[in-house]
């Protein structure tokens, strides 16, 4: 049975569409829904709660500006927004010439598979849980390289400098780690 919608009951995509339309209160509902994710990622990448607060605000401002260009075929709303957040955090760190992100710390903070909320994650629980398990099963150097490349958005060259290894070694670590995780995700999907 059809009934009128409330903003906080909309799907992520529908809510973002409402934001794009400047519907009253949509921006507030959007911020409320995603602020813990956005701020959490900003803190993770920067290690600075004050800077992270500013980056999270900038991320929502940028999302609001570009909501109309969001393409659901290319990414979930959550990952689209987190990618914006990560890139802003990286830019801010580059300006400060700082590298506070510690991939080992992130590994420790990863929730156990049973602790992941599939609705909040907006993806299949098994797939996300398996990804977390496989990530923690990677050799430490691969796990660090993968997290630096994905969550922290570092290039292979930057990872080589951070880890003190040749560029080829950094690339190999990223390659082996990502492909192993890809296999794990694909196995869950089939």
């Amino acid at each position, binding site marked *: 049975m059809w009934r009128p*919608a*409330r*903003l906080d009951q909309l799907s992520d995509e529908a809510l973002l569409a409402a934001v794009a339309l400047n519907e009253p209160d949509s921006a507030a509902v959007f911020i409320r829904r995603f602020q813990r994710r956005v*701020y959490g990622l900003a803190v993770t990448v920067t290690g600075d709660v004050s800077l992270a607060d500013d980056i*999270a605000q900038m991320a929502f401002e940028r999302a609001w*500006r570009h909501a109309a260009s969001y393409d659901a075929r290319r990414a979930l709303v959550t990952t689209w927004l*987190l990618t914006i957040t990560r890139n802003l955090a990286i830019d801010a760190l580059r300006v400060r010439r700082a590298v506070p992100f510690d991939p080992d710390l992130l590994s420790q903070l990863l929730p156990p598979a049973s602790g992941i909320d599939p609705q909040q994650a907006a993806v299949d629980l098994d797939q996300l849980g398996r990804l977390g398990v496989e990530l923690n099963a990677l050799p430490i150097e691969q796990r660090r390289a993968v997290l630096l490349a994905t969550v922290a958005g570092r290039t292979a060259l930057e990872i080589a400098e951070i880890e003190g290894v040749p560029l080829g070694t950094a690339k190999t670590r990223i390659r082996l780690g990502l492909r192993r995780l*890809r296999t794990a995700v694909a196995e869950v999907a089939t």
Partner: protein
Amino acid sequence: MSKNPTIGCDQFDEQVEDLALGHIDEPQRSRLLAHASVCPPCQSLLEGLGTVADRLLLLAPQREPSAGFESRALARVDTTTTSGTARFRVPLWAAAAVALIVGAIGVTAARLLDEPFASAAEATAAIVTPAGVDLGSVQLLANPAPHVLVAIRAPRPEPGQRNCELQRFDGTWVQVGSWEVADIAAGVWATGIDSSLLSATAMRITTQDGTLLATASFD
């Protein structure tokens, strides 16, 4: 794996991680994507690595921001709005035409209301009036159940029923739903559809008497 005049599978394989992570600049990025578009195994590899990179972002820990964050973020958005960059409103010169359409829209799909979800669109298209005014967009989505999602940026609506129809591949039109002013709540409208309509080729919006107000082509 298939052939490509500029990029081969070996070269693609060497750079696919950087491509998936967004670390390849143009024009090499376009060359690699062109290869993927004609090589299913390489496309699959790229998509798989991209999925992993996206999912890892979701594993990052969540954290409550300090008190007042929502207000601070909203103030930032409001500042942008009042600085003259509110870009989603239809120009006044188009308002007369737009008013014939939905105006604003309502979300009516029960599934949308009951369970927040995210999904990838099967097809997306721009909605335009017969005069060529861009009104918004329409998406056909498969998850969690097949539905059509209409988003129109328009002034407040004129009263009256608006019908949404989808065109099958064979050219026949199927009415999938309708809305009125009373349904309008959040600027978007959606309704469940038969899964066969996920491959629809076009959408149109009409009035109750059959007047064509807007169309969208999924081609």
